[in-house]
């Protein structure tokens, strides 16, 4: 076993250890054992930093990959399949190494930060335990080498987010939010699970390596459509976890959790998991699947941005910006800008974590005031926070010299290239949406900065009772704020909350990633993470051909041509199923053509992208200034002027209401109907008759009580009525008996007589 593997296993298990220790013993330990959590995470980060160093820095090789696995379940010699084992394993490549470092670092910082933020909470120890298991499951996703393991850790992430979001479970809203998050994720997981099932049913394995090998060898037994379906279904997992449209609704509510948790979940780990997973399965996504992904991402980015501009809760703004940024990443993957998307994943992780922790600091300082309308003029009181927060904001808005600038532009460039390659038309919608969202981002972040840090303090403006009530809602879980609230007002936070901010802010400056502030492509990241060769080439055999043509030829004639071969491509794929080696070769070459074109076109579009986006961003910021600094446009008036649009955005496009009305109400309705059906119909196929039975004249209460319903009821009923009639024959008059006797004899006689005659 490679030493790095061993180390990675240690990294994986350390947080679990912290969970186990803290969940059982936190009350017996000094300081509820928070130092254990921090210490363990520190170790974990140290190790993964070493791994990062030795993988990325030492062996500077894009194709670096080591794997190890062991038999987890042995199904023996299965008829029709042969010996069948289910393996668990670990794979380390560049992406893994980077993610490992990132996750552990941010988790460490969050731990550290929480020691200040959560101090005094009555479940302090349990909180760190939950952070531990969360980190554990996230690392599991990062390291796993097969779909099954990923699914397992995927669900575990769901669980730990459930636990953390609902950490203040006495709050009804928190309890709702945690349930919502879990269920929304489950919906996504169903899709993911089905996708996994499709692949397993063909190859009887969960391992990425084998699945890709089989796919490349064209062993996929079902039609090409199934493969596309598999891709989209697997993507659904990401839709759930990475809060893509239409399953994004859980994420803003998840802000009910403690703010550091928001940083952890919504910046570094959980939401990143979805994107990471799509990256892992990137190679088996068919072009059609990729289109779906791209459009989903674009829609998400745009929708979230439009919502963010009207939110007042500081954390909600950030939440929606997260959704929007995730949209970018997914968009990036969809358009095939693989490395750009992942690049953005990492950069975003750092500056968004910074933003959240910063907002946490603010909220902490403001004694759990989250509404930006009552903030303002904090830059003097909290200089550190102000500085870091602003830096991160710039990164998020995507101004030059920041990490966000490079990654976002790479994605947008890819989008343009993609639109070109796919032949324009509808596909140009994607970059357009992307750029528009960029502008919105700049706008709402500018708004936030201004509302929070500039102007004069508006704390006093807040309706008192409202504030009071709000304050009480939190009082239940945070004794700390209770004690010191009245003594002194807003203050800069302590060092253990400041340090993380600084580190994270530093990590969102460009030179960390690339020497050239304008081109991330020159940086180590883009070099290490390169677009892998797809394994589903066989199917877009001719598509490839046409693409090469399409670049040169005019767009108009290509658009129909794109659909046409796609149809017969399926058939072709079926036909091809036999030939392995040839198909494989074909697969690589041709598929690479498509990728190559996109990348190439992306590079071509690089500067276009930079110009457009810079303009957009500047527009956004100017707008923000115009509105909030120079008050040339009065936001209230505007809001009233475009009230419907304003409300639409303020109410988050009414998604919650829609879901409430359709799915939740609907399933509850079905549930009630069915259970009525169960008690009244199934449980008494003839309950109507059964009631008759009860009404039945002869019945005495004793019988009534014992009457058995359902089918038995039916028997009981018929049996009893017949019985009731038959017993009337027993008149008690002996002469009637004699008559009966004779009748019987005579009846039989006639019966046989007829049989004799005929």
């Amino acid at each position, binding site marked *: 076993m490679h030493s790095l593997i061993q180390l990675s296993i240690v990294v994986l298990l350390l947080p679990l250890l912290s969970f186990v220790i803290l969940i059982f013993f936190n009350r017996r330990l000094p300081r509820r054992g928070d130092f254990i959590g921090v210490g363990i995470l520190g170790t974990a980060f140290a190790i993964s930093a070493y791994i990062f160093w030795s993988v990325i820095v030492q062996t500077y090789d894009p194709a670096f990959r080591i794997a190890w696995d062991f038999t987890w379940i042995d199904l023996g010699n299965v008829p029709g399949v042969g010996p069948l084992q289910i393996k668990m394993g670990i794979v380390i490549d560049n992406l893994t190494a980077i993610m490992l470092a990132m996750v552990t670092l941010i988790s460490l910082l969050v731990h550290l930060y929480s020691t200040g933020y959560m101090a005094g909470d009555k479940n302090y120890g349990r909180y760190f335990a939950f952070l531990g298991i969360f980190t554990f499951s996230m690392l599991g996703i990062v390291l796993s080498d097969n779909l099954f393991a990923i699914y397992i850790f995927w669900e575990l992430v769901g669980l730990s987010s459930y636990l953390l979001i609902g950490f203040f479970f006495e709050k009804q809203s928190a309890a709702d939010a945690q349930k919502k998050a879990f269920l929304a994720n489950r919906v996504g997981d169903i899709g993911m699970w089905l996708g996994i099932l499709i692949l397993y049913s063909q190859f009887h394995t969960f391992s990425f390596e084998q699945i890709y090998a089989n796919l490349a060898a064209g062993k996929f037994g079902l039609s090409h459509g199934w493969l596309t379906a598999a891709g989209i279904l697997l993507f659904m997992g990401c839709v759930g976890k990475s809060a893509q449209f239409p399953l994004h609704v859980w994420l803003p509510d998840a802000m009910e959790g403690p703010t550091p948790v928001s940083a952890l979940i919504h910046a570094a780990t959980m939401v990143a998991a979805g994107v990471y997973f799509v990256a892992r399965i990137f190679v088996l996504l068919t072009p059609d699947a990729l289109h779906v992904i791209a459009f989903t991402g674009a829609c998400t980015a745009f929708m979230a941005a439009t919502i963010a501009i009207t939110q007042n809760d500081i954390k909600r703004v950030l939440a929606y910006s997260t959704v929007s940024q995730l949209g970018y990443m997914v968009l990036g993957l969809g358009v095939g800008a693989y490395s750009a998307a992942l690049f953005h994943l990492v950069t975003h992780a750092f500056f968004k974590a910074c933003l959240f922790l910063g907002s946490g600091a603010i909220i902490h300082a403001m004694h759990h005031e989250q509404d930006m309308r009552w903030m303002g003029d904090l830059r003097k009181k909290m200089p550190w926070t102000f500085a870091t927060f602003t830096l991160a904001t710039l990164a998020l808005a995507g101004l030059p010299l920041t990490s966000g600038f490079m990654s976002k532009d790479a994605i947008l460039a890819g989008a343009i290239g993609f639109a070109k390659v796919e032949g324009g038309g509808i596909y140009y919608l994607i970059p357009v949406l992307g750029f528009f969202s960029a502008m919105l981002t700049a706008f709402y972040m500018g708004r936030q900065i201004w509302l929070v840090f500039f102007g004069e303090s508006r704390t006093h403006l807040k309706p008192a009772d409202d504030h009071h009530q709000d304050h009480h809602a939190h009082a239940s879980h945070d004794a700390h704020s209770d004690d010191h609230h009245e003594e002194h007002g807003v203050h800069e936070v302590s060092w253990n909350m400041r340090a993380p901010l600084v580190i994270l802010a530093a990590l969102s400056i460009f030179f960390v990633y690339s020497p050239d502030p304008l081109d991330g492509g020159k940086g180590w990241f883009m070099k290490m993470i390169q677009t892998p060769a797809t394994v589903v080439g066989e199917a877009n055999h001719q598509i490839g051909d046409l693409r090469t043509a399409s670049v040169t030829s005019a767009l108009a004639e290509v658009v129909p041509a794109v659909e046409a071969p796609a149809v017969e491509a399926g058939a072709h794929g079926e036909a091809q199923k036999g030939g392995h080696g040839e198909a494989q070769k074909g697969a690589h070459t041709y598929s690479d053509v498509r990728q190559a074109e996109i990348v190439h076109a992306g590079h071509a579009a690089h500067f276009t992208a930079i110009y457009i986006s810079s303009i957009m961003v500047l527009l956004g910021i100017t707008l923000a200034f115009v509105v909030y600094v120079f008050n040339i446009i009065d936001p209230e008036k505007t809001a009233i002027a475009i009230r419907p649009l304003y409300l639409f955005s303020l109410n988050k496009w009414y998604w919650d209401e829609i879901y409430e009305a359709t799915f939740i109400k609907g399933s509850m309705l079905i549930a009630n109907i069915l259970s009525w059906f169960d008690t009244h119909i199934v449980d008494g196929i003839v309950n109507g008759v059964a009631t008759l039975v009860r009404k039945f004249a002869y019945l005495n209460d004793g019988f009534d009580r014992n009457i058995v319903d359902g089918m038995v009821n039916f028997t009981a009923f018929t049996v009893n009525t017949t019985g009731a009639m038959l017993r*009337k024959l*027993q*008149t*008690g008059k002996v*002469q009637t008996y*004699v*008559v009966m006797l004779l009748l019987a004899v005579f009846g039989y006689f006639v019966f046989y007589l007829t049989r004799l005659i005929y």
Partner: protein
Amino acid sequence: MEQLTTIGLNHYLTISAFLLGFGLFAVMTRKNAIVVLMGVELILNAANINFLAFSKYNGGMEGVMFALFVIVIAAAEAAIALAIVINIYKIFKSVDVSSIDTLKE
């Protein structure tokens, strides 16, 4: 002798059939227990006539034997029956068969 022999088996059978019918009729319709019992006697005697007739026309003594035994049995039956009827009369103060129906259903 001749005239006698002209009476065939069928005559006997017819008579016995009629007896049977009367007997059953009596059993079914009469209220008085005694009469009911007489009806039973009629049934048995119908059987007797058959036995004797058959044994006359088929030869063999079994029929005669049977008839004798049936008569004896009938006597015994009558004895028991009367005992029971008397007991009934003691209790119900009536021998109306149709009115005695406390046990039913």
